[in-house]
């Protein structure tokens, strides 16, 4: 079979005819695993579900934990909070704020969420900053600095700063600290990105701004910088009630597997991630092939990025080439609104892999752990925060290590189940939205000097 013709399940491919279906090569030429039913996924994003209320979390974390949140919020009821970021939709920060802000308000901690505005030139500069802060090459120009400061100044003039607490998310609005008044309000900078290896010029520009805040928050100790202000650790979080993480009906999970041609009578190993070299999908296939000499299994590679990102399409083609005509390698190119399908794929898996070579926090690991799955993760970025080696999952550093762990976990199901059990508890303890709410309440108390700290 010509690998160019190898079919992936590419749902909602905008470049193809209006399709809710698999874009596929000739049915007659397709190998058995490719004669799949056509998954029914909308070509447009569905309307968002209404956000959960606090009581909805009781079955997940228990009444005592909800009572604790309410107790911690009690002293903050007369306080006001403003959260500011750079986008209302898309991206992990907006996703978290969409859940966090309603919960804080339900707890009667009056929390506003405002979004800064800027022209294309501003977002080009901040995208460059973002990549540079992740360590990419960057030429910091005087013009870029002026654009950054001009838009920050415009937003500063436009917005009011009358609250008790200000939480500024990420570098884009960091310049709002210029509105700080002496002895009034507390300012917190929440950095969601990995600053372990920033471009020195860009960080040299931002650092004096950051050090005017009262505190900074990082997602992992390894992402932080040496700063003159206190630094706090807030892990990113998942929402156990979101479409990506809520419990699903067994019949729905089966339907998704049937649609995608996944045989649930045999082991399923899955990696969910964009078709991006940093996620090492090719390495995952190589590991699967090594493991398959000893254990029977299917490999599911599901993700997006191949439709809207030219490099993603190239990586997807590489992945298909490496997969060859193996009918047990199932490659799914999904649209961004496939949360339920991703949930079903993770839930149906025997092992979930996140074999990244470079990673941010890698919340797909927490998603899989929450579903009680044994996870094999690359020891990079925030993954070691989620996987304690051999206790809540296994960490690997090579294709060979990944292959060995696939073999080991599939042949030691009791050990694998124990990892999954521990992993779910680890997520419950550290990576749920409710834990995140608690951290905010504690930090606000500490910042306002109303700490009940022992």
């Amino acid at each position, binding site marked *: 079979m010509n690998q160019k013709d190898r079919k992936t399940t590419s749902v909602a491919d905008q470049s193809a005819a209006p399709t809710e279906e698999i874009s596929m090569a000739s049915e007659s030429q397709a190998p058995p695993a490719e004669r799949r039913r056509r998954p029914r996924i909308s070509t447009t994003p569905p309307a968002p579900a209404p956000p959960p209320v606090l009581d909805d979390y009781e079955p997940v974390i*228990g009444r*005592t*934990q909800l*009572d*604790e949140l309410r*107790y*911690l919020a009690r002293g903050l009821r007369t306080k006001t909070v403003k959260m500011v970021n750079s986008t209302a939709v898309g991206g992990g920060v907006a996703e978290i704020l969409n859940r966090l802000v309603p919960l804080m308000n339900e707890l009667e901690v009056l929390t506003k969420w405002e979004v800064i505005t800027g022209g294309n030139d501003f977002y080009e500069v901040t995208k460059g900053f973002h990549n540079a802060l992740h360590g990419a090459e960057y030429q910091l120009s005087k013009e870029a600095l002026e654009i950054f400061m001009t838009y920050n100044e415009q937003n500063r003039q436009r917005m009011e700063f009358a609250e008790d607490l200000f939480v500024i998310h990420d570098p884009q609005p960091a310049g709002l600290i210029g509105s700080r008044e002496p002895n009034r309000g507390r300012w917190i900078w929440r950095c969601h990105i990995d600053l372990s290896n920033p471009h020195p010029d860009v960080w040299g520009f931002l650092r004096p701004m950051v050090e005017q805040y009262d505190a900074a928050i*990082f997602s992992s*100790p*390894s992402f*932080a910088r*040496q700063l003159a202000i*206190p*630094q*706090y*650790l807030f892990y990113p979080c998942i929402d156990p009630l979101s479409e990506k993480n809520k419990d699903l009906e067994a019949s729905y999970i089966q339907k998704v597997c049937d649609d995608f041609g996944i045989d649930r009578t045999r082991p399923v190993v899955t990696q969910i991630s964009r078709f991006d070299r940093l996620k090492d999908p090719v390495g995952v296939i190589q590991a699967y092939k090594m493991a398959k000499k000893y254990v029977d299994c299917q490999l599911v590679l599901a993700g997006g990025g191949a439709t809207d990102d030219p490099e993603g399409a190239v990586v997807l083609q590489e992945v298909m080439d490496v997969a060859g005509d193996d009918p047990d390698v199932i490659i799914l190119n999904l649209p961004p609104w496939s949360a339920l399908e991703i949930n079903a794929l993770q839930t149906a898996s025997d092992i979930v892999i996140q074999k990244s070579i470079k990673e941010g926090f890698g919340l797909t690991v927490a998603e899989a752990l929450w579903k009680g799955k044994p996870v094999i993760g690359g*020891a990079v970025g925030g993954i*070691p925060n989620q996987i*304690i*080696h*051999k*206790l809540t999952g296994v960490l690997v550093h090579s294709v060979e290590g990944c292959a060995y762990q696939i073999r080991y976990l599939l042949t030691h199901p009791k050990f694998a189940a124990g990892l999954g*059990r*521990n992993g779910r*508890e*680890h997520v419950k*303890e*550290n990576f749920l939205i409710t834990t995140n709410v*608690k*951290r905010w309440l*504690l*930090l606000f*108390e*500490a910042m306002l000097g109303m*700490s*009940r*700290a*022992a």
Partner: protein
Amino acid sequence: MASVALPEGNLRSRWARAPFYFNSAAHLLRILRQQASTLDEFLVGLQTVPDDSIFEHTFQTLQEHHFIREGFSNDFAHWAFASCNEIELAERLAGVDVREFTSIQSLRDTLVGIVEAYLKANPPARERQAREKFYFRASDTFVVPTPLMARNLPEFVDGLQKVSIYSIHYHFIDARLRLKLANNDFSIWLEEELDLGQLADRLNRIDIYTSTLQDVRYSLVHILEAAMDRPPRSRTA
């Protein structure tokens, strides 16, 4: 197992001189400046970090990893094992039982002593690069009252079953640092307010390193219910 000789009388109807108020605790994590890439740097960190960092990596980490039944003792031992591959050092650090310490200073001295002795016997280990850095954190503790209180053993058992595992950790493990005694809040209340010294002693001997905090809760309840001649409950009750 030897049975506990209890004072005469019906324990179920005995009233405590003062009630037991169940509290809980919440923790805010700070990232400190100190980090270590080698055991030499790790030793300096152990010697210089604030007390609340030693607390975080020993006492508090037990709560954060409360679900692990075996193979986890404290962050220092885990790092020595997983990132430095110094198995002997890891074993020695893991053998430190926080319940034997009533002050952070004495715990710190013990940890420093273990690392110093190991490096003296294994000089090449001093500067060997760890696979992952150790990042020192610290923990700010916030006490959170609960609505639960007990005036007698049945109410006490009821409370133990309802409180969060954070409350169990606060009263049963953290208490040592507050009390400056090798004891816990539960045992002290039983002894001082209900004159149940032997029962108190039995609770204090529950092993926290081979149990999850849910196991600890189960053991507490099991011992107390047996003392009240109640039939044992199923583990999920």
